[in-house]
Each structure stands twice: as structure tokens, then as C-alpha cells.
């Protein structure tokens, strides 16, 4: 199982593992990976947690995972609509336990850039923008992010622009899981199909790996849940991840 652990499954599964019992967890727009991770956690883990999403759903039971992570199908079966102002305020007042937020660049402190490549005023690439990140990253109890490539241009020594700064807890890439130690990101585990040296080489910032180990492979239950969420492999093909 370990050798053929696909980078797609690696990212989704390791994001899901950040979900804890009885917490309030949120996934937003442009966030297929966290959406799948939350739905996977609901299916795979033997504990209760509250899953909020940007479509307004509260513990929904969608019949399928939509391509758009803000699709109204994510309210299917919900007993309440918790709309945008409401979940942002919840986060702002400290009521959000775990928030998944996107990033284009991440530095060793866990700060993120989702604004631009190059100078903000004359960007080489204009990126989508941080969404709620500048407010949610400092106010959620824990935030996690993901990158679909693990490279020195994604995991950088210095951000081109600091879109958001604050409570980053975990970062997942196709080959590694980082956890914040209060000062900086440290390596928590790496994909068993790569070496620690490869992770170091492909990371733009220096990190502590003293307590790191190869990532625990997906359990049967995790793997089955993801197969159920992406039965035809559409998400996996769309994502096109490589180790």
C-alpha cells in the first residue's frame, strides 16, 4: 500500500488527519482538497465533529463530492444554513477550531502568500487572493494548508507578499506533512516513497526534522472513504499531482 500511496490520496488523507473529535472544522471556496478531507473524516473516523462549509452547510450529507467546493450540494441534508457573515464572525471570535486555507507560497513561519508572484504592484502572476486568510489565519484556533507541488518556489524562504500571518498549524504537500512548533514549521512526517533528503532539497526554507518519521500509511477505512468520494478518479485526474 505504501509505495503506491498516490500523492492525491496523501494530501487528502493527511489533511483529514488534522480533524479532531468534537471540534468545529471549516472548508472554504477553491478548496477541493479540504472539502474531500472533511468528508473523508466524517466517513472514516469514529468520532463526532462539526463540519461547516462555505456553501452554508452544517454537517451536511452530500450525495456526492462536487467539483466546486462551494457548490450548494454541500448543504444537502443540513439542518441549518450558516452563511458567510456567520462563519467569519465565528472564526473572528475564536469559535473556529480548525480552518483550512489555501496558499500559493508558504514560508518557514507558516505565513502565506496567495496574492501575487513578483511585486504586488507589478505582478508577474496575479493570484486569486487570500479570501478570508488575513482574518482567519490569525483568529482560528488552528489552520492548515496544502500545496499541490512540493518545491522551493512553493515552500519558500521569503514570501513575495505576506497575504496572511498567524496561527498556521499544519501544511501538507504531496510528499510531506509539516506541523508548527510555535516558532516555525517542523517536519512531522514524509511520504514513505521519498527520502528525507529529497524533502530537504525540495523545501525552500530550513526546518527541523528531528522528530520526523515516514508518514503512517492510509488505513483501509481511510482508503475506502476516499474511493467512495472519488469513485471514478475525477478529482485525482483533475488535480494531476506528482510525488
Amino acid at each position: 500500500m505504501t509505495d503506491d500511496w498516490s500523492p492525491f490520496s496523501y494530501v487528502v488523507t493527511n489533511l483529514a488527519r488534522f480533524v479532531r473529535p468534537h471540534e468545529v472544522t471549516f472548508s472554504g471556496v477553491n478548496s477541493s482538497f479540504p472539502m474531500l478531507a472533511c468528508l473523508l473524516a466524517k466517513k472514516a473516523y469514529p468520532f463526532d465533529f462539526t463540519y461547516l462549509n462555505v456553501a452554508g452547510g452544517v454537517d451536511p450529507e452530500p450525495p456526492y463530492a462536487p467539483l466546486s467546493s462551494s457548490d450548494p450540494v454541500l448543504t444537502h441534508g443540513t439542518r441549518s444554513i450558516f452563511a458567510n457573515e456567520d462563519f467569519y464572525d465565528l472564526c473572528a471570535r475564536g469559535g473556529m477550531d480548525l480552518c483550512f486555507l489555501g496558499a500559493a507560497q508558504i514560508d518557514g513561519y507558516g505565513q502565506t502568500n496567495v496574492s501575487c508572484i513578483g511585486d504586488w504592484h507589478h505582478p508577474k502572476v496575479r493570484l486569486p487572493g487570500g479570501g478570508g486568510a488575513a482574518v482567519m489565519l490569525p483568529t482560528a484556533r488552528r489552520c492548515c494548508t496544502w500545496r499541490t507541488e512540493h518545491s522551493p518556489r512553493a515552500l519558500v524562504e521569503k514570501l513575495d507578499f505576506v497575504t496572511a500571518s498567524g496561527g498556521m498549524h499544519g501544511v501538507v504537500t504531496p510528499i510531506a506533512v509539516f506541523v508548527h512548533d510555535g516558532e516555525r514549521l517542523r517536519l512531522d512526517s514524509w511520504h514513505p516513497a521519498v527520502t528525507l533528503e529529497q524533502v530537504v532539497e525540495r523545501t525552500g526554507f530550513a526546518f527541523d526534522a528531528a522528530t520526523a518519521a515516514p508518514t503512517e500509511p492510509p488505513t483501509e477505512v481511510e482508503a475506502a472513504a476516499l474511493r467512495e468520494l472519488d469513485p471514478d478518479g475525477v478529482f485525482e485526474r483533475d488535480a494531476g499531482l506528482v510525488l
Partner: protein
Amino acid sequence: MTSKLVSLVELTSHIQDGDSVALGGSFLHRGPFAVVRELIRAGRRDLEIIKQSPGYDIDVLCRAGSVRRARAGIVAMEGNFGLAPWYRKAIENGAVELEEHACATLTAGLRASAYGVPFQPIAGVHGSELAALNKWAELPDPYGSGTTVWVIPPIRPDVAVIHVNEVTEQGDARVFGTTHWDRIMTRSARTVLVVAERVVDESEFRARPELTLVPHFLVDAACVVPGGAWPGSCAPDYGIDYDAVRDYLVDDEDSLTAHLATAPESRS
């Protein structure tokens, strides 16, 4: 009471060159896209677009050269379509000016207008370069907690346009599912325009007045465009038309013309 219902053309005529326009919905969901396309047909220019998470709407307006300025939190096509390409180009080549927000800072600015106050504090923002970029002020807590807070100046759109499921002839409007940011937009703008999937008898609103998002007296004009949120979704009536979005994204001169001609409001 006189009817608020007008044609799409008449409704769109409330938006003038240079206006700031808040657009409801989020990404490809329940956006007032029929109005967006009508703005292009009407040749509107120099618009300021205000929306926490625009995508198709701001992209097609940038493509048509209708936009001067964007105030937004996150801009993308979403679905699985990635960035909004014509918006991206317009920012990169300086054709459009961007005021980049966190979604919640944009909401805070709208709240300042809706609450009639000169600024609205917002949690977070600490450490983000957006604060300096936008020249936001950081105020100390006058009650002695020792903390500071960022405050956002009022954002008061000239017009807010939202797409809803149902409207009465008098202009009351309601949506099913999430309201996105439509509520605060309709409370902060000078003029409120509503596009609806259908008009229903007022007795249906009377039966469940709690569902009404915008009461008639806040609405300046309304129109009915079935399918008007195309190529996006309007739950529970229809979902995203992925093929249409894909066709729109083809980068040749005819695809925009074809797209506009294929829209539901063009077919009726």
C-alpha cells in the same frame, strides 16, 4: 402599491458608467450574471466591482473592458477551472486597479456603511501586508485591554445587484440555501436591484415572511430572468453548466460573442 418589476434592460439601466457595483453570490453560484452580461451589451465602462469572491462575473466584465477597479477578497473561476484569465490579465497589465481585501475586511467595510459608522473594526489582519497596502488604520483599544484592532473605512456601493430564487411583484426577495454576502450588500448600497428566477404570489411570502432576505422597500427595481445565474448555479433550480464555462474560456474572439448570444436572457 406599484409594481417594481421591469425588464432586464430597464433594470440594468440603473447602473451608469463609473458606478461602483456590488454583485451577489459567490464564484459560480447564484450570481446576477444576466445583469453582468447586459452591462456588457449596454457598453458600460469604468465600473468598480465589489464582491468578496467574484469569478466569472468579473472575468467577463474585464474581458469586455467594462471594469476600472476591483475590490475583492478572492478571485477565481472555481469549479475545476482555476484562475479567472481575463481578470488576471487586466490586473497584470494594469488595465484594472485592484483593492485587495480579505473577504471579511470587505464585509467590514460594507458593515460600516450598513451601520452608519465611519469605520468598522475587524479581527485578525495582524501581520498581513494588506493593511499597509490599503492604508488601513490600526486603533488602540480605548478600554485598556492593551490590544489594537484594524478598522476598515465604509464601502458604500452605488448599486447592489443580487440574483434570487423568488420575488414578489412589489420587490420582496428570497433565496434558498446560503445568502452568501447578499444581505450586507443590500443593506449597504444606495440602490438595490434584484433579478429573480420567478415571481410568486405575495401570499407565498406572507405564509413564511421569515424567509424574505430583502423587503420590498429596500428594492429599487426587480426583474425576472429564468436561468439568469447561468452558466453558474441557482440551487435548487439548476447547477453549474460546466460545458458553457469551458466554451466561455476558449481564448478566441468569437467565444465571447457566442457566449453572450447563448445566454438564457438572449434566448427568450
